[in-house]
């Protein structure tokens, strides 16, 4: 009885995953591509960088990168303070 319920739940889980995998949108076909097309067409001209990913990460989304660096800085400094306490 219990095994049957477990089997049913497992079957439901697997069928959900398989259904999702087959009904997913095909690769490289996003629902909204206006922003992508704009960056691909004008990114090199506006930022002057040949690497368009770099142009997005460090120029269009520079504030986001500043936040990432702040997260890394905070993590490493907090880790150093914690381990120094343990060493003493």
């Amino acid at each position, binding site marked *: 009885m219990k095994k049957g319920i477990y089997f049913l739940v497992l079957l439901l889980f697997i069928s959900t995953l398989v259904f999702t995998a087959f009904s997913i949108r095909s690769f490289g076909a996003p629902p909204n591509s206006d922003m992508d097309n704009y960056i691909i067409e004008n990114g090199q001209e506006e930022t002057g960088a040949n690497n368009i990913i770099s*142009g997005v990460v460090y120029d269009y989304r520079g504030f986001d990168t500043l936040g990432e660096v702040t997260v*890394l800085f905070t993590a490493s400094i907090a880790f150093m303070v914690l381990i120094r306490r343990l060493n003493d």
Partner: protein
Amino acid sequence: MIEMTKIVRTISSLVYPLTIIFGAFMIMHGHLTPGGGFQGGAIIASGIALVIVAYGSEASKDFFSSEKLAKYTGIGSMGFAVIGVIAIALGYAFLHNYLLGTQLFGYVPDGINQGFINSAGIEPPIEIMVGIAVSCGLGLIIYMFSQLGEVEE
């Protein structure tokens, strides 16, 4: 963490300068080739990890110090913010690319170019700052982990 055999130490002392040079190359050419500040900084931090693993935590105290690594992490992340604030002082928005079309090591090209090393305005300085912050921050975490292993023995 004890030091490894002489073979590992010799090979790692041959390899780690090349690792650090490759990371610096990836940081400097982040606006032209695949890579950038985060990736190059991670490569440099892997060079630091190689030295620490090969030579052990006791001998790596001669190479690195946690105060210096923490100081350069702060310098890198503060330099990024300072580059952004300079744009406000010049009258633009925060992190505006104010170096395009000006003179810095020659004319900085504004628009599509062949891939000069001084193109892309403020991107290369930002990438250098991010590279310093990431390499020293990850190196600091690896170094402090090795010191923690020493305490528990």
